[in-house]
């Protein structure tokens, strides 16, 4: 009686502490900060990031919000209506909070450098409303004399213009982006308007992530509860599994907030995965509980049933958690990208809490709450005739009866997977994160179609001496480098101080844009003085530094794909190393595309390393669990098959290996191996405990653990399918391929694993017979 009371007290204490812990961790979640920037994919101390930051600081570069104005009319941009719209947008954008009014650049604020008669004009193209078509034609004529603005401020064919809006505080870019959208809503007629730019992408992505997280997590919970309800049909199972799942998700996010780690785009998949994965332990423990209740009867002592259930299932429960953690450790141990690294770390935190709640809170909860018998469980497991158990039994027994065929089919699948893997391309495109047809995608398409391109690559030129950039030789070499860049695929623009010097030299000679760089250094210095005298002290800082020792070449590219940036970057680097660099000057590459190149370049290697780490750890764990090399290898067979199947699909359907999709393999290993562990553990257990044939063991497995395994699979599979319903295409792909991997792992664990066990038994029998004959 006393032990009964003390047991109850202990259960209440465990439940109380568990709920308290849940509330405490939940209170931390509100402190989470979002980081949807592309910069988040590289650590702050990465040499490419440090170099980029230094270049941005040196040249005062900031990521602007860009409005593209497109006018397909007869006079294109150069009619009063469009030019006045451009002027209106330039003036009104300057009034938006957080916009630097002095850094709103468009044709309506830019300076023309033109020589006419005896006068040199260094002044705005226009700064007032245009009333006549003659005035508009004059502006067209002036623009035509300034090739440096073609494709940058004005569309290459004159059918559009750009307004570049620099922000004072980049951290509130999303808010400013909303204000810019509101501005174009109330803009007068004059052309179609599109908003793009890095700050806009970040703002747009932030909104996507908000919408996604509002949808994915509740849907995940809902799906899991429907599955739990159908599987157990008791209120207690719903309440208890809800708390276990909530503890897993809340602990991961709460500790993330406490550690000051931001919520990245990729983090959006983590809660859904944890919902699906963390419920697995509960499913197995509750299955064991209700099975025991079915055997012992409704009036059996619930504490005793809970303990019995835990005793019978703790080994696979513990080991599957460990192997899942090993899967995520593969990501932690191999990824240099902070979002992926922290994804692995906090998924492990969530899994540990799921385990803790499953083995402490859940049995306590079952003992107190699970009075009702589950209608889903029957006592005669061996002769259970429900469709699910029957299907699992048919699949597994048929596989065991035809092991060579099944294993042969698995090898064929493996072979196709290897072929597919060879066709997989590491690639990524920032704009590809959004669905086709989205406003931000249309804006990007417009900029790439009408202008030089929305993607930038910078080359920093460094002279060895002060004023060393403003020499004939350096400027000529810079011009040659720009020309070389323009020969590369997708490169439409390459500009630097050289273009302005040429423009001014031409204007001083009353000719159109000059083609000659002055050889006299004093003349170059004086011409540069004339240029700077016409603008603010920092107007040229994004072209050349104060000591005229460093200059920037800006390269505009119409493709944001990593595969294109890799070719361009490597070609330019080769040119710089072999032709440009000399005793007098050197150059190095920086900019957004260069960062993309650096963070995606090691992706394939990191992907392979993560698989090697996860697979090795999981194999060692399985061998340790079963104390058998053979069973260890059998355990990982389903996941190897699932990974190669996904490779085949990716290769044949052209799905890129990117930051998100590269994580699928380790997650598939960590989660998928659970099916193999449970299958081998239970089949071996039934065979050894009851000394039955493989077929009988499969029958019992199908009715008990096989069923639980299916519920487990369904929960995880549903959550990945829900991730695949994300609004972000990259998450869609990630969810889709993970769901496929889990499906293959599950199917292989009830087909390939029995086939392997049967084949192994046949070999052992044959070997035994040969030994007896001998």
């Amino acid at each position, binding site marked *: 009686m006393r032990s009964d009371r003390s047991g109850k007290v202990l259960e209440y204490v465990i439940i109380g502490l568990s709920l308290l812990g849940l509330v405490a961790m939940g209170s931390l979640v509100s402190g989470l900060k979002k980081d949807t920037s592309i910069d988040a994919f590289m650590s702050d101390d990465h040499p490419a990031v440090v170099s980029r930051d230094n270049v941005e*600081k*040196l040249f*005062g570069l900031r990521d602007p919000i860009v409005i593209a104005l497109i006018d397909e009319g007869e006079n294109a941009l150069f009619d009063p209506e469009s030019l006045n719209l451009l002027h209106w947008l330039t*003036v009104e954008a*300057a*009034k*938006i*909070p957080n*916009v*630097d*009014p*002095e850094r709103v650049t468009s044709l309506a604020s830019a300076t023309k450098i033109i*020589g006419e008669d*005896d*006068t*040199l*004009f*260094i*002044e*705005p193209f226009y*700064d007032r409303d245009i009333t006549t078509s003659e005035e508009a034609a004059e502006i067209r004529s002036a623009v035509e004399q300034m090739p440096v603005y073609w494709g940058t401020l004005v569309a290459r064919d004159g059918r559009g213009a750009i307004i570049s809006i620099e922000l*004072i505080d980049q951290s509130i870019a999303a808010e400013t982006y909303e204000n810019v959208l509101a501005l174009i809503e109330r803009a007068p007629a004059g052309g179609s308007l599109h908003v793009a730019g890095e700050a806009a992408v970040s703002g747009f992505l932030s909104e996507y992530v908000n919408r996604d997280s509002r949808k994915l997590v509740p849907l995940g919970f809902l799906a899991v509860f429907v599955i739990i309800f159908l599987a157990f049909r008791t209120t207690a199972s719903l309440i208890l599994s809800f708390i276990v799942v909530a503890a897993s998700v809340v602990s991961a996010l709460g500790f993330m907030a406490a550690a000051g780690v931001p919520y990245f785009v990729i983090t959006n998949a983590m809660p859904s995965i944890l919902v699906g994965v963390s419920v697995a332990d509960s499913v197995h423990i509750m299955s064991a509980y209700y099975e025991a209740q079915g055997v012992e009867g409704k009036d059996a002592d619930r504490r005793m049933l809970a303990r019995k259930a835990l005793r019978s299932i703790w080994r696979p429960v513990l080991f599957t958690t460990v192997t899942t953690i090993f899967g995520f450790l593969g990501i932690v141990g191999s990824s240099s990208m902070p979002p992926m690294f922290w994804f692995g770390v906090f998924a492990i935190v969530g899994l540990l809490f799921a385990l803790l709640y499953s083995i402490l809170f859940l049995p306590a909860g079952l003992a107190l709450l699970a009075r009702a018998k589950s209608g889903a469980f029957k006592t005669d497991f061996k002769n259970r005739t429900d469709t699910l158990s029957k299907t699992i039994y048919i699949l597994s027994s048929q596989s065991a009866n035809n092991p060579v065929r099944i294993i042969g089919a698995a090898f064929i699948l493996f072979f196709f997977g290897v072929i597919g893997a060879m066709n997989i391309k590491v690639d990524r495109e920032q704009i590809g994160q959004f669905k086709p047809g989205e406003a931000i995608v249309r804006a990007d398409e417009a900029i790439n179609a009408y202008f030089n391109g929305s993607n930038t690559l910078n080359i920093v030129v460094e002279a060895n001496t002060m*004023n060393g950039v403003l020499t004939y030789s350096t400027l000529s070499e810079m011009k040659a480098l720009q020309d070389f860049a323009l020969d590369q695929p997708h490169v439409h623009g390459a500009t630097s101080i050289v273009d302005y010097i040429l423009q001014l030299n031409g204007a*001083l000679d009353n000719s159109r844009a000059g083609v000659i760089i*002055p050889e*006299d*250094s*004093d*003349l170059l*210095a*004086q*011409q540069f*003085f*004339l240029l*700077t*005298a*016409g*603008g*603010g*002290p*920092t*107007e040229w*800082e994004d072209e050349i*530094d*104060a*000591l005229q020792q460093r200059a920037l070449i800006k390269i505009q590219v119409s493709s944001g794909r990593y595969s294109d940036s890799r070719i361009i970057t490597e070609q330019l680097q080769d040119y710089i190393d072999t032709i440009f660099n000399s005793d007098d000057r050197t150059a190095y590459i920086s900019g957004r595309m260069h960062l993309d190149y650096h963070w995606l370049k090691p992706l394939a290697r990191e992907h392979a390393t993560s698989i090697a780490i996860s697979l090795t750890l999981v194999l060692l764990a399985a061998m340790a669990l079963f104390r058998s090399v053979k069973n260890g290898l059998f355990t990982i067979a389903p996941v190897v098959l699932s990974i190669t199947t996904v490779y085949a699909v990716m290769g044949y359907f052209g799905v890129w290996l990117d930051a998100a999709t590269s994580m699928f393999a380790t997650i598939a290993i960590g989660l998928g191996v659970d099916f193999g562990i449970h299958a081998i553990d239970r089949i071996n257990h039934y065979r050894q405990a009851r000394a039955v044939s493989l077929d009988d063991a499969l029958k019992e497995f199908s009715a008990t653990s096989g069923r639980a395994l299916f519920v487990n699979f369904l929960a995880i599979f549903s959550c990945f399918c829900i991730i695949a319903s994300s609004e972000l295409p990259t998450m869609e792909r990630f969810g889709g391929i993970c769901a496929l991997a889990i499906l293959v792992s599950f199917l292989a664990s009830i087909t390939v694993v029995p086939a392997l066990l049967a084949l192994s038994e046949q070999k052992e029998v044959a070997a035994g017979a040969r030994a007896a004959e001998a």
Partner: protein
Amino acid sequence: MRNACVIAILAIVGAPSVTAEEQTQVLTGQAMAERVYARDDGERVDQTLIMELTDRSGKVRRRETRLVRKEYEHVHKTIIAIKTPASLKDTAFLTFDYQDAQREDDQWLYLPAMRRERRISASDRGSYFLGTDFTYEDIKERTRLSIDDFNFALLDRPVDGEPSLQWIEAQPKSENIARELGYGRIEALVDKKTWMYQRLVYWDIGLNQLKEITLTDIAEIDSVLTAQIIRCENLKTGHSTTFRFENIDYTSPVEDRLFTVAAMRRGLP
């Protein structure tokens, strides 16, 4: 002439002088701004102007120039000739600032390496002056604030231990003026002893803090109160420009032939 009326009235009542009575007198912000605006700063001056441009990383570019200015009846003429650095030596900038607001200013630039001068288009009032942090308006008004462009009001912000110092606020009279000058509002610290601004803080048209101008080393030279160091710091970019005035001469005659294109070609001694 934009401010002809005010200056005429002040000329009738006499040039502003600083008396103990006036120092204690309670003036409106508008009256203070008018006092500052009417302060005599000489009809002509010949001086050395050293421009020091400092970027946000602390790198300094230094230019030494000779600046000669003379006021005529309808026009202010200024010539600036660069002495150093050597690569810019004798580069000169000549400007005629007409009192008739309707008439565009004339500007010429001489590049010695090309051995030719070019007329250059007039700059807006809000444009930066020769690539420094000062605007043409700052230079034309010699860091005073035009009473035609702004409404002034006293700010209730006493300066500890300095009863002669008073903060006033200037608001552009119209959105157009604000846009033309690039200023949304200005706060200025008036020294009632000298009727000079000691410090001016500017906000841009989006009301973000823009820049700060400070006037120091104030001395009476040839009976004209003169700030020998004027510093302008852009609070957004971190860039700053310091003007140091040396060899200031308000009294020696300034020849009219200095303000010609031919003089630019010959170079100022």
